[in-house]
């Protein structure tokens, strides 16, 4: 299976640039996720790869086969040999499951016998064996989605493209489908580009994630990297929940000590803040340590806070506390008996410091 290389991809609609010189490289067999809020350009990127939307500039190559190059080369979608699963599934209602899945093979002039064998094989793969004769309206949403996947895999494709394929499934089914698709993708080893706005999907399925915002790449990395070492405040805020504190590094001072309004001592951060002046500190709720009976001496970044509210959320407890001018969210797995005040530890390596924007 070839890898995918995109260089300098740009697209605007009128004055509105939706992609700014985007570069991307998905390795052979990798499940590569484009993650971002709506309007970030992830779908435009996917359509450009499929050939359904010509970009303005840039270069797209599958392995060493160039499919788009600054409008000099623009291979039409039917010649790109991609398999696409649409958000709506786009399963043809007038064709049976067999004919839906067999359609790409028919176009490739595969003989009838071979086609039937291949269709059966792919349907077996997506666990729909025996449903060849059904029509789409006789299938559940989850089954239709697997028909769409089987059709996308039938040729077989050089590249599998998935456009928010789980968004029409209910929550329970979505989680199952996620695990199932991940296992299938690893078995087949097809290079896959997956578009989603759902961080849980992205984190649980991807080899690597590219976080996008308003047509620009914010960070590319493994799920762990993206979650634990977000490159900037946008990524930190978009993936999971994060507390953000406004801080300040005095000129000439140690950049690993950031002052926060309302705290006597500066907070120790590791790695240090990127620059002097205003800074933003991000810390995940579950990384904050609660010390119900006081912290051991010499523990850095220990603060005493007022508890504003408590909520029980089934698998965890959620406390909102007041720290200086800020509200912090703290998560714990067990209930903590507390008075009006609570002692917290903010471990230095759990805090990410970013330069304040603007």
């Amino acid at each position, binding site marked *: 299976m070839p890898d995918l290389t995109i260089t300098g991809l740009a697209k605007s609609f009128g004055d509105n640039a939706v992609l700014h010189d985007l570069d991307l490289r998905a390795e052979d*067999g990798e499940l590569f996720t484009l993650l971002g809020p709506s309007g970030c350009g992830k779908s435009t990127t996917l359509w450009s790869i*499929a*050939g*359904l939307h010509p970009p303005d500039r840039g270069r797209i190559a*599958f392995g*060493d*086969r*160039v499919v788009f190059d600054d409008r000099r*080369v623009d*291979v*039409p*979608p*039917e*010649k*790109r*040999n*991609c*398999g*696409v699963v*649409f*958000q*709506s*599934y*786009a399963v*043809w*209602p*007038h064709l049976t499951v067999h004919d839906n899945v067999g*359609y*790409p*093979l028919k*176009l*490739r002039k*595969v003989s009838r016998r*071979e086609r039937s064998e*291949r269709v059966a*094989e*792919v349907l077996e*793969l997506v666990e729909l064996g025996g449903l060849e004769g059904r029509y789409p309206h006789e299938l559940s949403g989850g089954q239709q989605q697997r028909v*769409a996947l089987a*059709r996308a*895999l*039938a*040729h*077989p494709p*050089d590249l599998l*493209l998935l456009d928010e394929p789980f968004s029409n499934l209910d929550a329970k089914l979505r989680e199952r489908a996620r695990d199932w698709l991940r296992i299938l993708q*690893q*078995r*087949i*080893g097809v290079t896959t580009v997956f578009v989603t706005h759902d961080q849980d999907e992205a984190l649980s399925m991807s080899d690597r994630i590219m976080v996008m915002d308003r047509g620009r790449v914010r960070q590319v990395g493994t799920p762990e990297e993206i979650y634990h070492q977000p490159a900037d405040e946008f990524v930190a805020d978009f993936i999971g929940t994060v507390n953000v504190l406004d801080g300040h590094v005095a000129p000439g001072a140690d950049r690993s000590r950031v002052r926060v309004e309302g705290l006597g001592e500066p907070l120790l951060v590791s790695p240090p803040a990127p620059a002097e002046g205003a800074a933003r500190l991000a810390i995940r709720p579950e990384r904050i340590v609660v010390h119900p009976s006081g912290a051991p001496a010499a523990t850095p970044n220990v603060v005493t806070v007022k508890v504003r509210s408590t909520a029980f959320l089934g698998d965890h407890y959620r406390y909102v506390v007041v720290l200086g001018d800020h509200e912090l969210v703290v998560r714990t797995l067990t209930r903590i008996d507390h008075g009006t005040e609570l002692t917290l530890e903010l471990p230095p390596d759990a805090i990410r410091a970013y330069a304040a924007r603007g």
Partner: protein
Amino acid sequence: MTAAVPAGVGPRGPAPGRAGLLSRRLASTTAGHYVIWAVALLVLVGPVLAVAAAALWSTPLYESGGHLTLDNFRDLLGDPTWWRAVGNSFVFATISTLSSVTLGVVAAVLLTRTNLPFRRLLTGVFVLPVLLPGLVLVVGWMATWAPSGYVTSWLELNTVLTFPIDLYSLGGMALVATSVAAPTVFLLCRTTVLSIDSSLEDAARSAGAGPVRALLSVTVPLLRPAITNSTLLVFAVVFEVLGLPLILGFSKNITLVSTYLYDHWINGTSAEQGVVAAGALFLLAFVSALLVVRNRVVGDTGRFATVMGKSSAKRLVDLGPWRWPLAALAAGVLVVLVVVPLVGVVASSLTSIFSPLISPWSVLTSDNFEAVLDNPVWMDSVVNSLLIATVGGLVATVVIALLSLVAHRSEFRMRGSLQQAMLWPRMMPGLVCGMAFFWAFVLLDPTDTLRGSLWGLGLAFAVRSLAVGYSAFYPALAAIGRDLDLAARVSGAGWWRSMISISLRLSIPAMATCFVLLFVSMLNDSDPAVFLVTDETPVMGLTMLQLAATSTGGAVAAFGVIQMLLTVAVLALGRLFLGKRIHA
């Protein structure tokens, strides 16, 4: 990576070296689009240019010589009868529009939002004139409500009542026009009434308004866009109509713009043809301007409302003790406007004399129908119309589907202009359309093979009906997700292949609806035929028009009944097979 899927069953994508082949294939798709676009523009827009040429040329275009001139316009504008015709048309269109909008809006509210008894039956009777060939109803009006008509005479003989309106006056013509135009207003407004969220009315109710008050203060004002829309539409359509004023205006010599053009074409010298072209341009400009204003005001929702039967789950307003008197009033209006004329046309087709002085039962006869069957011209026109409607309707349906796909589903650069071109014929009055094709055939087809044939006639009818079909087809196409054909593209199908195997295949039900509408419309169309018909190619609509304009009596009624039965049969078959009601 354990490859559970053995690769290599399907051929791989093309090697980079095949780029030349690819661009050639791409180019052929685009070339196909260009050819379709050019032919469509030539057929849809081109003929109007021919009318302009005829108006600006000193001699008819089929004669040699001549020069550019404005004389035709000068002659037209200097003719007092032209100005009288324009004045009459304005009066006629204004009265008709006012009365049909009033009637249509009241009916839309009364029949959809109140608990009026028998409202389904009343609705069915009310919209009947839209479905039937218009001239048949006019013949029915003459047989019953004309000064010498059956019911008028009966009233005078047996009661103190008289029918207050002379059918052969502008007011009488407007009354007949109302019976056809009011249901159009009704259908347009009913769609809006049904789409209004009833919680808006509920809000007024909870604010303290009674049910009728809530209906009048919330729903009726929300109808304003629909009322504006139907007002402009009805005015434009009534202004251009030919058959009705030709038949009813004949005896008192009342000339409208359309009959002025008809008369000068049929009875005038060939030198007057330029004047007629100039008049046609005026008519076209005026009607187009009205419809452009309408599109600006309300958006382009279709000159021909295509409404499928739709059940309403709205809460009905209780009329209380008024429901029975109102129902009786509504029934009375419908009896006068629809039931009596229809019964009249059927009765006069089955009797040798239809008069209150003689019991109809004593003069029952099938002679009228035998006369129709024995008359070769009449039978020819039935056969010709069926041919045009069947073949033309089929071809036009396929063409509409094809053009819609290029206009809405391709990446073709000029697709926007194609969308405009498909909407354009709805601006064209039938007379102008016929004349446009006449002059276009003169210019482009010197051998006259097309002009004298059913094909030429069918082409003009098809262009005129294009908008009806497109209005029915396009919403269905829009409802077919774009993803479905994109999925075919990425599976390996080229543009044409993906269109044929997916989009066209899925729009077959819409094409069937489109065909039924085109069939009915082309079966009964008359106005364009005025300019194109020959002795060998009579068509039903025009034959009916010419008969009704010059004679009355049982045979005309019988011919009308045959026309009506054919129409109803096709609509019923459409209903049976497509499972929905079709209103054109």
